[in-house]
């Protein structure tokens, strides 16, 4: 039985299979509409995340399956002090697959050890969120026609942003990848990402402070939020926040083929004026999130169409 706890659980070949299945689902949705008939998926959200939960629920509905679950810990037995292991053992005796989000890092791994059915990690604190990474990979593949030979700019909070760390880890497995890491000094990528991921594979990267100056080189621009609470003082935040807001003006020297991605929800880091430019891919990215989750559910349930 397979689980998805960390994006590294999947080989490059398996990721490509998921992308191919997702592409087929996008082209022939009716072929899949009864693929999971009589199957049940549980969404166990020990902390709320409406977007992720709806994406999974919509994915299972479009496969003809059924969904049950809870959307916050207060309404679950955890509020009465039940352990993750006990909750999972109970739920896994009812359903065929479990999707779980939890504020504590490592909780889905604990769940996978006791579960009788596959467990998908839908986010564990600031640690892993592998289906977001799969969504990003599918989006890059569909926008660029492949995952090789790309210059990828990552902008914003690179220190605490888990989606950025997983995306770097995942993209490092493809050839001809170059990273441009765009952030304020205070929010640079952690040292271990450089020493554990980038340097052993000799992947070229540069760390820069200016978003505007880096844009002309990029094939992909992955925007993330710069959160106020990450700064030591208000003055620094006020000084830096506009630097990392993407506007049509900053995009004037971009390649025609540049794709702008964002894991959403956004606050103000991409101005809404960018939405109507050909660079904006983040709304398609949301849709892709559903399709790659459908592909993942099929794979973990061992359903072939």
């Amino acid at each position, binding site marked *: 039985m397979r689980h998805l706890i960390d994006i590294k659980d999947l080989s490059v070949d398996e990721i490509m299979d998921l992308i191919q299945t997702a592409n087929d689902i996008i082209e022939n949705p009716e072929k899949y509409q009864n693929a999971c008939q009589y199957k049940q998926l549980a969404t166990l959200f020990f902390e709320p995340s409406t977007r992720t939960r709806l994406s999974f629920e919509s994915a299972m509905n479009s496969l003809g399956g059924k969904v049950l679950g809870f959307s916050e810990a207060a309404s679950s037995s955890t509020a009465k002090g039940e352990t993750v292991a006990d909750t999972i053992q109970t739920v896994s005796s009812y359903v065929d697959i479990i999707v779980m989000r939890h504020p504590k890092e*490592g909780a889905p791994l604990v769940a996978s050890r006791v579960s009788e059915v596959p467990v998908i990690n839908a986010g564990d604190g600031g640690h892993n969120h592998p289906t977001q990474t799969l969504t990003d990979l599918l989006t890059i593949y569909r926008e660029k026609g492949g995952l090789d030979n790309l210059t990828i700019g990552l902008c914003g909070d690179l220190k605490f942003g888990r989606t950025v760390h997983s995306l770097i880890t995942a993209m490092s497995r493809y050839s001809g990848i170059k990273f441009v890491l765009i952030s304020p000094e205070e929010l640079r990528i952690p040292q271990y990402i450089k020493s554990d991921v980038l340097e052993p594979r000799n992947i070229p990267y540069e760390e820069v402070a200016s978003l505007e100056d880096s844009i002309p080189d990029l094939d992909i621009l992955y925007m993330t939020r710069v959160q106020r609470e990450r700064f030591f003082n208000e003055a620094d935040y006020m000084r830096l926040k506009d630097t990392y807001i993407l506007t049509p003006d900053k995009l004037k020297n971009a390649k025609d083929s540049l794709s702008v991605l964002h894991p959403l929800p956004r606050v103000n880091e991409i101005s809404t004026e960018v939405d109507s430019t050909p660079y904006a891919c983040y709304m398609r990215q949301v849709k892709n999130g559903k399709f790659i989750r459908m592909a993942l559910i099929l794979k973990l349930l061992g359903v072939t169409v």
Partner: protein
Amino acid sequence: MIIGQIRDGIVLDHITAGRGIEIYELLGLDKLECTVAMIKNAESEKMGKKDIIKVGQVIDLNFDILGYIDPGITVNIIRDGKLVKREHLSLPERIKNLIVCKNPRCITSSERSIQHEFVLVDPEKKLYRCLYCESEAPKNIG
């Protein structure tokens, strides 16, 4: 200097000089009834100085603890005055319930029944990460 020969027991040799006391305490040797000798700053050809611990009884040792703290240690097991086994330690692949994860966001911090477990990710740097949250192992045990 020679400390009496052991008939049945264990000799921990090639302990990094100065760490003998720490290992003595971690293995709980103070609680044993049998003879225990701690030799500090013994001369060593390859190490210059080393510590040695001799235990006058064959006890169960946690090799993971030893390997983690001081992977250069040699463990000699002696029965009837003869060396029956010599083990060179190495860094253990996994360490269970020895190091405690200090990350307050880790699941092990809120659920006490989950055992702490660290995985060796980089033998050269002697780097371990928590199995659950991937935080680096604290440098001091406990």
